[in-house]
């Protein structure tokens, strides 16, 4: 019991679980989203305690920041569509078939059982058990970067990361296909204080984003965290209407989305043709290649996350809606 942080950990764990329960039980949706954002930040803090700074950064930036923005935008859209924008309508905004009490209790009991099973299995498992850290440490000199997480992300398991960026691309294609048209729920003007703030912070955020990207090769940071921070730039531009997406920009946007994936896959294949296997960067070029890929992937991620926030393909939807009668 000598560990000074023990009390802190217990408190933090309690707070995280309490917030999780509160997120699902509080009546007002807006409050639920805010509680969720706080939950995300606290869990990021917990991950810092578990000495996982990269993951904490990613969770805070993407898991909570961008997701929170998406949730708020969706809530705004739901309220706008149901016309309850002005008032703080607390009831849920979508048709609700009340789940009979019996079923929800059965579910709860069922999940309780699962939790018990998982907990006992977790306690039974070896703690601080076997892992791949030895192998990673051994292979790090050949990876071209010094920060282990970036090494794993962009060299040892580069295939996973490529597919992850493909998932992001698939998401933006799907979102563009689902939502269309120029009209968007009209956001109220944010006033000039916000303009001043935006004008002041935008350049700073860009600098911080690129700094994060650059530091990625030897300290916690990298493509995804940098990309998320740069995405914040996009979000602020969209919110403050400094940039309004127009149909003409679609071609550029499409290029930006596929830039990261295309270059990543292209480099992987080019490298493979020299008698090596895909993703096998030659040692001397490894660092430059990884940085090139990381930079472009960051740009792609930033533009994609901003487009996901905007949520629709900026195209003039033909007047009659019946274009899809399949």
């Amino acid at each position, binding site marked *: 019991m000598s560990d000074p942080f023990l009390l802190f950990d217990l408190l933090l764990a309690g707070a995280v679980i309490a917030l999780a329960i509160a997120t699902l039980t509080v009546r007002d949706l807006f409050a639920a989203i805010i509680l969720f954002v706080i939950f995300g930040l606290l869990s990021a803090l917990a991950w810092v305690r578990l000495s996982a700074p990269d993951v904490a950064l990613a969770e805070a930036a993407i898991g909570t920041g961008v997701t929170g923005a998406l949730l708020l935008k969706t809530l705004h859209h739901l309220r706008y569509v149901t016309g309850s924008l002005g008032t703080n309508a607390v009831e849920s905004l*979508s048709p609700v078939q009340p789940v009979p009490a019996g079923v929800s209790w059965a579910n709860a009991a069922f999940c309780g059982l699962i939790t018990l099973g998982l907990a006992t299995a977790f306690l039974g498992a070896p703690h601080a058990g076997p892992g791949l850290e030895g192998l990673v440490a051994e292979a790090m000199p050949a990876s071209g970067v010094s920060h282990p997480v970036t090494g794993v992300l962009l060299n040892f398991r580069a295939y996973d990361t490529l597919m992850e960026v493909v998932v992001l691309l698939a998401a933006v294609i799907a979102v563009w296909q689902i939502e269309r048209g120029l009209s968007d729920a009209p956001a109220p003007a944010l006033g000039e204080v916000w303009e001043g703030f935006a004008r002041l912070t935008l350049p700073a955020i860009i600098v911080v984003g690129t700094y994060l990207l650059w530091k990625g090769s030897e300290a916690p940071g990298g493509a995804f965290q940098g990309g998320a921070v740069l995405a914040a730039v996009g979000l602020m531009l969209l919110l403050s209407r400094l940039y309004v997406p127009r149909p003409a920009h679609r071609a550029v946007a499409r290029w930006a989305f596929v830039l990261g994936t295309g270059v990543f896959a292209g480099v992987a294949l080019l490298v493979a043709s020299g008698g090596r296997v895909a993703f096998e960067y030659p040692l001397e070029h490894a660092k430059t290649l990884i940085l090139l890929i990381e930079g472009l992937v960051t740009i792609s991620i930033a533009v994609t996350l901003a487009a996901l926030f905007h*949520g629709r393909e900026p195209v003039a939807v033909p007047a009659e809606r019946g274009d899809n009668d399949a």
Partner: protein
Amino acid sequence: MTPDLIYGLTGIAVFAIGLVGALCAQDRLRRVLALKLCSVGAGFLLVVGAWRTPSAAPDPVPHALVITGIVVMVSATAVALALIRRLKSLEAEDDD
């Protein structure tokens, strides 16, 4: 009571809460929140899997996995939210 024990159980608890929410919540937005909770719970478990004895360097592989998991989860959430928005505007369009 080392940190990884505490946070491991927290992760499982959060996953379970998310599971209950995903199964019983009727409101569409809340189900997305519940699923996101599940993903954070799974993230907890992986990060705990990476934790090594205090102050020793943690295992980087699960960290990379969780980062990938987070990015994948945000794209899935974005698509789900787009579907909710679309469904709502279609329903509103049909009602009036």
